[in-house]
């Protein structure tokens, strides 16, 4: 050891002596330096052409944000395409608008205020619904904690807690920038003022964007009032995917590898697919680039959030293997009954409540009055899913299993998340029923056929039903909402003015094909990327706890504290007198 240290010291001293003897700047270095300085001087002038960020929120929302109930803008923009057949008409309207503006300057000022108020209303809406989604963290923590064995109660709670903490940090650093760094190009959120500073793809461009590149560490162009409003809303959605994996990997995963999973989900897995669908990326632009209906549509995230979480969970569950004792020597599964059904049901109700933020909030604005339809559709699918699961279980096994009833409700919620804005209430009921079936069959299939141990049913509820939900957009969407979605058919679609996103049953089979492609790609991406990365991790160091730790329960080995200390410490010791 002494020898190596001495040698290292010599090398360092020699290097220092050499650098002191050389001229400070070689010719190449001088030229490079000049280029950088000139480039640096030129940058401010380039920056002036870039949209300016607005951290104080005093420049967001003006007359360009003022629209009427039908989405028609107060401001008339100058038509640029001189070859278009309606150019003369549009030019006339523009000239008239300019003349009116000159005659009534007070009306223009009022329009600025109206536009600002509209954006402000939508900020409130987006942030408050975002807080509801944040509250779902508590719901999922209760749900999953209740579903596992008592000896792992603290472990489950801590997984849910740490998931929020570490995935958030990864999303802050790179996730948000990857997902929304280019959103202003193809999918600017007009309801929030447009977030114009988020306008660059790191990988791809135009209609073929793959990765956003603005807003790293939420600084520079990301340190903007409108952008950060979007960040809050979108980070809590990412967190939902982050905690979904807990449901499948609990009771046997090491804490260090779990933190790695969360950093992976928050920084890479979720944002990349999220960019493709919501960040203006290539899946959303398939309508324009490949004439595939409205492109891939996922309103509030059946696939972007739930299927990503569910299939990531599946890959991890496959790598980890089933819990000790889950399968007997004959391969027959054994049950590990839930230790606290009160937690399970309460958690489910909290999730339902939070979903009132998840789905209606995804309009990013209460000025979009479709929010009431979305809220009702969400609830209908939830109850239909629960009723279906309860009936299925009653007829198949003789009693309506409480945990499956809860899973059924969540399945309905997951499945309606993509189509909620585009379907009728009755379609929502049907979607809920379908989800109820899928989750019941899925749970039995995972446990009995492919033998993937999923303690909380996360793979079936979020993975399978998430895929189903996105596909249901392509079947049940009725065209009453979503005109101009992903930039397609703003004036007319399939021959009807104002027609929105439409599915197979209402005359648009191409949307179904697009949905099948996108949803399946989501499953492949989430499962594949996770499986590849974490197979490598697992080879380097085992992600699963030792046999002894798993049998004892993970509470004390991982966190030094049992979830229910009074099971271990006799009451006498706990009540010591001074």
């Amino acid at each position, binding site marked *: 050891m002494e020898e190596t240290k001495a040698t290292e010291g010599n090398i360092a001293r020699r290097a220092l002596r050499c650098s002191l003897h050389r001229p400070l700047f070689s010719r190449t270095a001088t030229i490079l330096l000049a280029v950088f300085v000139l480039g640096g001087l030129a940058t401010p002038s380039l920056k002036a052409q870039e949209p300016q960020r607005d951290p104080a929120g005093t420049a967001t929302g003006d007359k360009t944000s003022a629209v009427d109930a039908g989405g028609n803008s107060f401001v008339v923009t100058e038509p640029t395409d001189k070859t278009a057949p309606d150019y003369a008409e549009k030019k006339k309207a523009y000239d008239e608008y300019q003349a009116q503006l000159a005659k009534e300057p007070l009306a223009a000022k009022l329009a600025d205020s109206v536009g600002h108020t509209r954006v402000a209303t939508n900020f409130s809406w987006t942030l408050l619904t975002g807080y509801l989604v944040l509250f779902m963290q508590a719901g999922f923590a209760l749900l999953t904690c209740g579903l596992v064995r008592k000896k792992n109660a603290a472990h489950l709670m801590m997984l849910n807690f740490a998931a929020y903490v570490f995935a958030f940090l990864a999303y802050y650093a790179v996730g948000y920038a990857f997902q929304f760094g280019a959103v202003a190009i193809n999918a600017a959120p007009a309801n929030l003022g447009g977030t114009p500073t988020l306008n660059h793809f790191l990988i791809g461009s135009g209609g073929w964007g793959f990765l956003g590149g603005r807003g790293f560490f939420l600084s520079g162009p990301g340190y903007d009032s409108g952008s950060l409003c979007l960040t809050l809303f979108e980070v809590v959605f990412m967190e939902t995917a982050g905690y979904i994996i807990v449901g499948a990997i609990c009771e046997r995963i090491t804490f260090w590898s779990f933190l790695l999973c969360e950093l992976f989900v928050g920084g890479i897995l979720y944002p990349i697919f999220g960019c493709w669908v919501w960040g203006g990326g290539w899946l959303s632009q398939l309508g324009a680039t490949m004439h595939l209906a409205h492109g891939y549509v996922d309103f509030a995230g059946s696939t972007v959030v739930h299927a990503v979480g569910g299939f990531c969970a599946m890959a991890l569950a496959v790598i980890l293997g089933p819990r000790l004792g889950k399968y007997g020597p004959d391969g027959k*599964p*054994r*049950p590990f*009954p*839930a230790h606290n059904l009160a937690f399970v049901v309460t958690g489910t109700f909290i999730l339902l409540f939070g979903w009132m933020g998840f789905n209606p909030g995804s309009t990013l604005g209460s000025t979009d009055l479709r929010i009431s339809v979305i809220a009702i559709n969400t609830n209908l699918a939830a109850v239909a899913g629960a009723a279906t699961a309860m009936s299925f279980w009653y007829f*198949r*096994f*003789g*009693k309506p*299993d409480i*945990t*499956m009833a809860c899973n059924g409700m969540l399945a309905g919620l997951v499945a309606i998340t993509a189509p909620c804005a585009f379907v009728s209430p009755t379609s929502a009921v049907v979607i809920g029923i379908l989800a109820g079936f899928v989750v019941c069959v899925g*749970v*039995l299939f995972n*446990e*009995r056929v492919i033998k993937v141990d999923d303690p909380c*049913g996360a793979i079936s509820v979020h993975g399978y039903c998430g895929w189903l939900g996105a596909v249901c957009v392509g079947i049940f969407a009725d065209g009453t909402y979503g005109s101009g979605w992903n930039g397609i058919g703003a004036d007319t679609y399939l021959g009807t003015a104002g027609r929105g996103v439409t599915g197979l049953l209402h005359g648009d089979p191409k949307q179904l094909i697009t949905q099948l492609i996108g949803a399946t790609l989501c499953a492949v991406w989430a499962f594949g990327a996770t499986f590849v990365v974490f197979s490598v991790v697992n080879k380097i160091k085992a992600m699963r706890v030792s046999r002894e730790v798993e049998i004892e329960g993970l509470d004390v080995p991982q966190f030094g504290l049992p979830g229910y200390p009074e099971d271990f410490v006799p009451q006498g010791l706990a009540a010591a007198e001074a």
Partner: protein
Amino acid sequence: MKKVEAIVRPHLLDAVRNALHEVSVAGMTISEVQGHGRQKGHTETYRGTEYQIEFIPKIKVEVIIPDDIEDSVVEAITRTARTGKFGDGKIFVVPVNDVIRIRTGERGEAAV
């Protein structure tokens, strides 16, 4: 002195306790136990997987009594704990070597 251990249905604990007080039994210890007798358990399912419920929750009542009231104690417990259905429980009577009251140091029947 004898120790009487009675395994009884939990919801009949109150009735048994009152009956024991009536026959001048001063103190008792109870614990929550699980067990089964000659009846086999039954099968339930959890999320589609079958499992056996073999053990039923019961209450164990333990009392230390002087020999002379053994018969009345056993009769009191039997009367109040019997429903006539399977699962009524059992009573065990075992001899006791010594009893000590910790507070005073008394031994034997005086300590009961």
